[in-house]
């Protein structure tokens, strides 16, 4: 009953009933007791899962999120010939991709540009942060802002589909982890909170940083938990036979997984940055962003499928994000302020996955919900701080810009060392090889082995909703 083909009897279409599909799909894999494992396998073998989802690909995606949107014209898509109303103060520098330049803000990335693809022709249609984020991450065509997303983001969907694909495969680590993840305008929507990320917040470069619910260190506490779980098993005498839906079995799986996360030293190791050598930690930068990206790589290496991390906080400047309106920041000062840590961390991540031979398996995507207006606007600052002059000082800023912006891609077995697409001479409109949110999403799904053209998930009203409505994997990125 779990796979619904009630709708859309199309050729290869696979329709998932979303949350009404029971437990078997809810399992994000688990560290199992033997009886639990057997129960689960029995359940999985009865279920026809994921016809168009091939077997677990072992791929991973790291989404590095620039909340608020990065000014493309000041970084990856410089327009030195544009007038001073547009071009900004930064010089352009050559990159490892012959004939293409970045600005001087990101010299390290320029030097490894042969290990990335710069997509300069991304566009979408929703100019607000909420709607823009929803368009890019969940493909919602609505251009108006709304308080909560209507559609699940690609991370939750992929987590859901991969969990389903891997039902019965014992594992300890969650499939989807967010390290200070973007959550404000995106989420699992009708898939339900079971498909939210396992979320870690805080600054991993802080010596006191701990990941909650992972690898308890207090031996006494571990012993206590294990003892009370044993007691519970002895007292849990109810006849399991009523459990035809295998609900209890699934609860056992989750408990086992939770127990493993709490008490198994190997799970703690996946998160433990102190096990990285100092040179590596230094290379990413001894700051929040650097260590977030290092943790992302570590988790991907340990088998986590989907990792998101948001480059926010005080490294961004006064308003703690990339929303460089003149009232918030002097866009140029703010970019200068955050460039070093940003450039270092992203460069280290990309180099690291290539050096470790993870570049086939892990796809890295760095993007924000949109770019910033190529034309500079001048407004009085609303407050002093990093990247912003004292209140009342007129300063340059850039506003939301959806018609053309850049994002970067690396790893994932793609042919790197290319610039794809272009904006016009002012950096305003994507004019060559235009790529919309559907293309963006289809590209990511493709890497995870999900054929987005034929997968539907039922929303709460039972309507089979395509995971990508319009869009195809970007050929240069697959």
């Amino acid at each position, binding site marked *: *009953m779990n796979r619904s083909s*009630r*709708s*859309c*009897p*199309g*050729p*290869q*279409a696979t329709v998932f009933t979303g*949350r*009404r599909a029971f*437990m078997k799909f*809810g399992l*994000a894999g688990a560290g199992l007791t033997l009886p639990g494992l057997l129960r689960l396998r029995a359940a999985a073998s009865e279920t026809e899962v994921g016809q168009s989802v091939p077997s677990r690909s072992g791929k991973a995606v790291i989404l590095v999120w620039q909340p608020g949107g990065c000014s493309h014209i000041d970084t990856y898509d410089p327009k030195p010939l544009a007038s001073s109303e547009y071009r900004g103060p930064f010089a352009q520098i050559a990159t490892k991709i012959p004939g293409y330049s970045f600005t001087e803000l990101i010299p390290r990335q320029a030097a490894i540009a042969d290990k990335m693809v710069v997509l300069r022709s991304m566009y979408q249609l929703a100019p607000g942060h909420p709607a823009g984020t929803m368009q890019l991450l969940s493909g919602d065509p609505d251009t108006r802002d709304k308080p*909560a997303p209507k559609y699940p983001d690609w991370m939750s969907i992929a987590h859901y589909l991969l969990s389903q694909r891997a039902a019965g495969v014992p594992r300890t680590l*969650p499939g989807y982890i967010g390290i200070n993840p973007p959550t404000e305008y995106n989420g699992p929507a*009708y898939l*339900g*909170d*079971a498909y*939210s990320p*396992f979320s870690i917040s805080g600054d991993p470069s802080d010596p006191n940083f701990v990941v909650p619910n992972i690898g*308890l260190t207090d031996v006494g506490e571990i012993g206590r*938990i294990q003892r*009370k*779980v044993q*007691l*519970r098993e*002895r*007292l*849990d*005498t*109810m*006849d*399991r*036979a*009523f459990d*035809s*839906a295998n*609900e*209890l079995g*699934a*609860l056992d799986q*989750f*408990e086992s997984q*939770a*127990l493993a*996360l*709490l008490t198994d030293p190997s799970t703690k190791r996946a998160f433990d940055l102190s096990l990285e050598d100092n040179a590596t930690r230094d290379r990413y930068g001894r700051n929040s962003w650097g260590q977030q990206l290092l943790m992302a790589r570590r988790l991907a290496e340990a088998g986590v499928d989907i990792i998101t991390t948001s480059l926010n906080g005080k490294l961004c400047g006064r308003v703690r994000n990339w929303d460089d309106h003149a009232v918030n920041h002097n866009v140029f000062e703010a970019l200068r302020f955050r460039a070093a840590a940003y450039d270092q961390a992203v460069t280290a991540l990309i180099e690291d996955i290539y050096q470790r031979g993870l570049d086939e398996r892990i796809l890295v995507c760095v993007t924000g919900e949109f770019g910033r207006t190529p034309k500079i606007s001048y407004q009085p600052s609303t407050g002093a701080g990093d990247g912003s002059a004292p209140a009342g000082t007129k300063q340059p800023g850039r506003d939301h810009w959806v018609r053309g912006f850049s994002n970067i891609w690396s790893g994932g077995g793609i042919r790197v060392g290319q610039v794809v697409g272009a904006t016009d001479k002012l950096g305003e409109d994507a004019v060559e090889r235009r790529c919309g949110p559907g293309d963006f999403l289809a590209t990511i799904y493709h890497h995870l082995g999900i054929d987005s*053209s*034929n997968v*539907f998930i039922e929303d*709460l*009203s*039972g*309507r*089979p909703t*395509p995971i990508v*409505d*319009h869009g195809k994997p970007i050929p240069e990125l697959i």
Partner: protein
Amino acid sequence: MPDPEGCDSEDGVDEPAVHVHWEGRIVWAYCLGIGMMIHGHRTGSTGQPEACVPRFIVALRRPIAYHLGSPSATDSPAGFVFMLLHSPARSLVFRRWTASCRPRIAKSRLFFPPVAVATWCFSFVVAGDLTNSVAPPWYAAIEDTGVIDFTNDVIPILTKAGCNAGACHAKAGGGQNGFELSLLGFEPDLDFDRIVSQARGRRIFPAAPEESLLLRKATGGVPHTGGVRIGVGSPEYQLLAEWIRGGALPRVGLRSGQSDEPSTISSELVDVLVQPELQRMQPGQSQQLTVIAIYSDGGTRDVTALALYESNNPAIATVSDTGVVTAAEMPGSAAIMVRYQGRIPVFRPSVPLGPELTNLVPGENVVDQHVFANLARLGIPPSVRCDDATFLRRATIDMVGRLPTETERQRYWAAPDQQRRIMLVDALLLDPDYAEYFANKWTGLLKNRRDNSNDLAANFAFHAWVRDHLQAGTGYDQIVKQLLAATGTVRSNPPVAWYKRVTDPKQQIEDLSQLFLGVRLQCAQCHHHPFERWSQDDYYALVACFSQVGRKPTGVRNEDMIFHQRGVAEATNVRSGQTLRPRALGTGLGEIDPSEDPRLRLADWMRTPDNPYFAPALVNRYWKHFFHVGLIEPEDDIRDTNPPSNPELLQALASQFIASGFDLRGLVRTLVLSDAYQLSSEPNSHNRVDTQNFSRFYPRRLTAEVLLDAIDQLLVTQTSFSNLPVGTRAISLPDNSYNRSVAFLKVFGRPDNSSVCECERVQTGNLAQSLHLLNAADLKTKLAARGGLAEQLANAQESLADRIERIYETAFCRSVQSEERDAAEAFMTQPTATKTDFEDLLWAIINTKEFLFNH
């Protein structure tokens, strides 16, 4: 396929043969010949030949699936008679008699190759146990007018091949790779234009039909993302090729210029029948369906090969592409949806577990009459009656959303054995927590959301309004009417708050129809509903009922005064552009004066006794609340194609509910005091596999609110909710805003009140829940709370055994068993149990399935 009837019919078509016979009582002939007319004799119970009935069955000039019939020994006599005449000059004359009986279809199918137009072939089969029938059954009525009709012939092939599926060329906004078709062929005119005219006509090529892009793509002759959909030379291929060769006209003679009829005449599909409609099937048994299309000109056609099939419950019965239904191992009833050209007849197989039970004595209760009749029919022996302790906990949780209090337990055990369950139920019905608990359910579904602090007053007022009406016992129809037709301000009339949150008339009708009628209309906003009768006209006519809802701002932001705006209510169908007046679902509302609020008409229609949705939807929703599995699943998806597992029960409950004046308490009482509700959740050796016939009680995890309250109740602790008095329980929360401040509620799936679907509430487990139970600070704090149960127990003077007994009484309403006591005692520090010991014991108790579930 097995052929128990011994009906061998794989012979060639040109060989007259006599095939079908049955138990020596009836012998009917199957013939194929030229211009023959055959009289059949029926043998009555006396053994004497009785009346003759002439039958004609007609010609095949194109490949068509053809079925042979045979009767069944167990079914009541078959009684379908098709009388078909055909002459070269006129097309078919057709009549049909129906008697109250059901034929069965044998498993044999023949494919007739196309034969020359000039050849008049006919064939027929009759078979059946005719003891009581007025006429013999028919089989296989086939019509052929010699004309290929785009709508009736071409579209079904495209649909069967999947071309116009939602994932393919019917994908919203442009189809696939520039070729767009309407979803499942609901718009044949558009499809005709797209196939014939668009893309500069390159999709069809009459001079060489085989070179048409349509065929080349479909057969994989040129690269096609959708793969090979139609085989070269297949009957479908030949028909498409023939159509193209004839000029790809809307209606074209099978051979150009030889059509019998002018091409302007078009016959419309008026009905599609599936045979049989009902069938009792043994596990593993197969049944070939026959699907007959009936046209406005009287013609019929066997469209078995072109129909699409889908089972609503593959665990009970599966169906193949060719319409062969196979019963699986699980007992119960399934629905096989047969889709042909927008018509959706349903075949309902039922699969018994064992032989019919004769020893079940259903009680007086309407629930029991039908539940046990169904179980007897399906041969599923019910579990035993649950014990008193189990009933106490079960009914209390389901009726008032909490564990029984100590006083309630004492009163229950003090009551006389025969009376105690009834007395408990009657007391709980009057308990204020009954209204609290159901207000919690309804306010969630009615989207009592707090998006910002402006909503606060409306949230509280609306919640109080729902609770007070439930407490007062207001009829359900009146509650719905007051809500649906609310006018005024939130302050003066709280149900107006619903119009604050649901502002778009489209959203309003979608919500109301899903919530109160169990009809999901969302699909019909943009296209004809794929599994339902609802068209865009139905959708927008309902929208018209809400077109005159006037709004005037009040002092509170986003909080309008609602009033009826004088004027003619109407709405526009976005596709046809046609203006529509208000209608209810499936029926008109009459002329509505501009001064009259059409919403009142709609509300009055809702409560009319012959409304097929309103009462069943509510009864089914409440049924699911108590029995944990709906008679229709999901509970708010009532359609012909999703029939109830026990239709008689649903109908009887609905009638009783209407007759009671829509009395919710009376309904609850009927459900809870039924023997069916009082069955044990423990399966016996036979009914383990049953998941839809209520042969035992199906346990369900406590909802987030109930679980949190139960933990607090057990541990003698409280959860604090911002700005609400200490001691407020989770089931009394007015809106969703507390999900943010109290992580427990969100983690355990309390809905955010953003959908009218109960499915927004997630009852399934996940990793976060397990982590929460194992390690979250809030539970740890409660376990260790000062003055909490662990501390009380650690300081108590009673024996350890008595203290353990106390825990079991509170948590499970039962005594501790000796093994449990031994395990608990062995766990304790010797000689004196510490507070920590009790914390861990209580943790273990909370985490048992017996605590987490209502069983």
